[in-house]
């Protein structure tokens, strides 16, 4: 089986869906001839034609709005935000128009908005954001966030096929750093709303998503080697709708839970997860629910500052040790 990077897997998924379904098309800035700022759509324009790979002006609101209109007409558009940081320019269209369309007007809007998110790359405040929390409280949207190459492929396919609008967050730091062997000739579709147990354990659970899945796995390995603590790592994969059952299963198994995400602490998704655990698994808790997140500051550029602000493997290890000793 060949090894593909996270980015190549995403590209494969997009390509396969474009081949499989004529209604799928891509629109975004520099996606056509250039193949996309990160080369995700390299070769697409040549294969599928300029009409299905549309180079747009710098107009995120128009991109999302136009995608919505096309979706109403039965198309399956995939709208790219060159950096997900610019999705804020489309916030109005996405939350007011797209998310509410089915509910208020019975209008199907099966579109995907995707874009590279995340830090650890010294991109500064406008090229490193994790915006999931801003859309998390918007009923009508689905949000997915793959951490592995396999899920990058599986989730883009699932998102395109889903009849609801999906915000697909791909992590730019993972693009070329994650490689995985993917089976050929097999349709890889990751169900939306289903978490994945990345590592089994008995002493505590780390619930996370995105790049911090990898840091959590590193931390779990370290805890095993140095402390004899067996940590379980749950990769959420989908944030909305969240897989409550999987979360409660792991909480009930280990009774201690650490929530980890790269996004800031206040208003971050971990707060919601903690509330749900409190509601659904209170009696199984043998320690307070703890969070490891970014500090509540805009993301700074300098490497020393970014490393301080964002959660690192060593932070997860420390927090897990605290929990284990509780």
């Amino acid at each position, binding site marked *: 089986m060949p090894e593909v990077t996270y980015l190549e897997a995403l590209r494969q998924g997009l390509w396969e869906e474009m081949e499989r379904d004529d209604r799928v098309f891509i629109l975004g800035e520099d996606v056509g001839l250039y193949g996309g700022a990160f080369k995700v759509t390299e070769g697409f324009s040549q294969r599928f034609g300029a009409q299905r790979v549309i180079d747009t002006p710098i107009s995120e609101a128009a991109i999302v709005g136009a995608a919505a209109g096309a979706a109403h007409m039965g198309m399956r558009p995939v709208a790219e935000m060159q950096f997900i940081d610019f999705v804020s320019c489309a916030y109005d269209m996405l939350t007011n128009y797209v998310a509410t369309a089915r509910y208020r007007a019975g209008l199907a809007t099966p579109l995907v908005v995707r874009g590279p998110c995340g830090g650890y790359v010294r991109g500064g405040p406008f090229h490193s954001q994790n915006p999931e929390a801003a859309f998390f409280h918007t009923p009508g949207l689905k949000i997915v966030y793959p951490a592995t190459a396999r899920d990058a492929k599986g989730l883009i396919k699932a998102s395109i096929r889903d009849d609801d609008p999906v915000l697909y967050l791909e992590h730019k730091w993972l693009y070329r750093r994650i490689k995985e062997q993917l089976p050929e000739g097999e349709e890889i579709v990751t169900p939306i709303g289903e978490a994945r147990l990345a590592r089994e354990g008995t002493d505590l659970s780390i619930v996370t998503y995105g790049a911090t899945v990898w840091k959590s796995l590193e931390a779990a390995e370290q805890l095993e080697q140095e402390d004899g603590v067996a940590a379980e790592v749950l990769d959420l994969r989908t944030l909305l709708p969240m897989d409550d059952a999987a979360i409660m299963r792991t909480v009930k198994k280990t009774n201690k839970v650490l929530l980890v995400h790269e996004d800031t602490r206040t208003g971050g998704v971990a707060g919601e997860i903690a509330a749900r655990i409190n509601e659904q698994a209170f009696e199984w808790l043998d320690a307070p629910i703890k969070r490891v997140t970014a500090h509540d500051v805009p993301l700074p550029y300098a490497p020393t500052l970014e490393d301080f602000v964002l959660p690192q493997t060593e932070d997860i290890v420390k927090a897990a040790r*605290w929990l284990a000793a*509780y």
Partner: protein
Amino acid sequence: MARVDVLMPQMGESIAEGTVSKWLKKLGDPVKRDEPLFEISTDKVDAEIPSPTAGVLAEIRVQEGQTVPVQTLVAVIETDKSATVQPAAAAAPSAAAPPPKPAAAPGPPPPAPPASPALDRPRPPSTAPVGKGGDGTETADERLRRRSTPLVRKIAAEHSVDISTISGTGFAGRVTKQDILGFIERGAPAAPVSRLPAAAPSGPVPHPTVEPWPGDRVEPFSKIRKITADHMIMSRRTSAHVTSFFEVDYTRVAELRRKHKAAYAERGVNLTYLAFIAKACAENLRRHPVVNAAVSGDNIIYRGEVNIGIAVALEWGLIVPVVKHVDELSLVGIARAINDLGERARTKKLLPDEIQRGTFTITNPGVFGSYAGAPIINQPQVAILGVGTIEKRPKVVTLPDGTDTIAIRTLGMVSMSYDHRVVDGADADRFLADVKRMLEDFPEGAI
């Protein structure tokens, strides 16, 4: 002579590695600052990389065609700039497979994050706020030791285990899941061990401090005082104290005493009112088991034995020796036991077993003249009977012909404080009514 590192650059945020495609200089070649040194190729772009300084190409670490992660040391330039301090290499972005750190970068290292304290045994900070509950001054740590976590409470409830009887190895000494599961596995008794009545189960109680004024004398607690002080507070906090007051007509008992006192004295027994009261209580504790009980968590423990403690006031403090199996003793037996225990209490000759496992307590404030008291329950019991002073008082009596008149009777109050968590008013009063009745109609045969 100084050595300057040349690193594989990162040309673009997502780029993780680069290939040296061509060296433009050979080992030993002189090179000027910013002069192109080598060529690289990456996923996005090919580029010429200029030398960071003037000098001589002293080392080549990566050969043409080799692909290495970004920030890898690729070459070293020797420069004759004196005392050039090494630049802080832009810290490698942390990676899932961390790239090798650039070798030998002396000079000011990137400022390390502030050193964290040594972690030999991680001490989690107390995250719960200090309790300032209306109930007193229980701290978060105390609460945690008493109540642990939801999971441990659930396990404790399922197995009828009292968390406070298990020693905890967790944060703040709390009982962990492992602690309680281990405890249950070892078959530890489900019922808590009976404690010294005066001992506080969860450790010493902190009493608030007060500033002494000039002229005051400050005396630290003696051990017995400390135990008593802690117990009184703990008992008040634990039980829902209610006191019920009954007036007992001891005229008959007084008569019986007068009649038999001499005979008892010959046998070396002082027949006190207390003995009669103890006998009446013993009989009726059997009939009202909820008054002869203990509360454990959400459970009532109905005691199999009836062991009555008799509070003795000594110069140096309060002590409560226990008459065991009172319901099996005769009046003379009870009297003898009370005499004996009292004597040995005063001479400090009580055995440890003799101040344990009481199931009910009688205290006698009346001996000093108190009309009635509202005593504090002796934990872990649920009731304590206070005997008020016994004296002649006027009382309305109904003559056989139905008329009322005032008579002089020997009367005294009994006041029982009971734990309303499990003993309801009706329970307490029915018990006391029966005790009163028995005392007022004391069977001669029982003597």
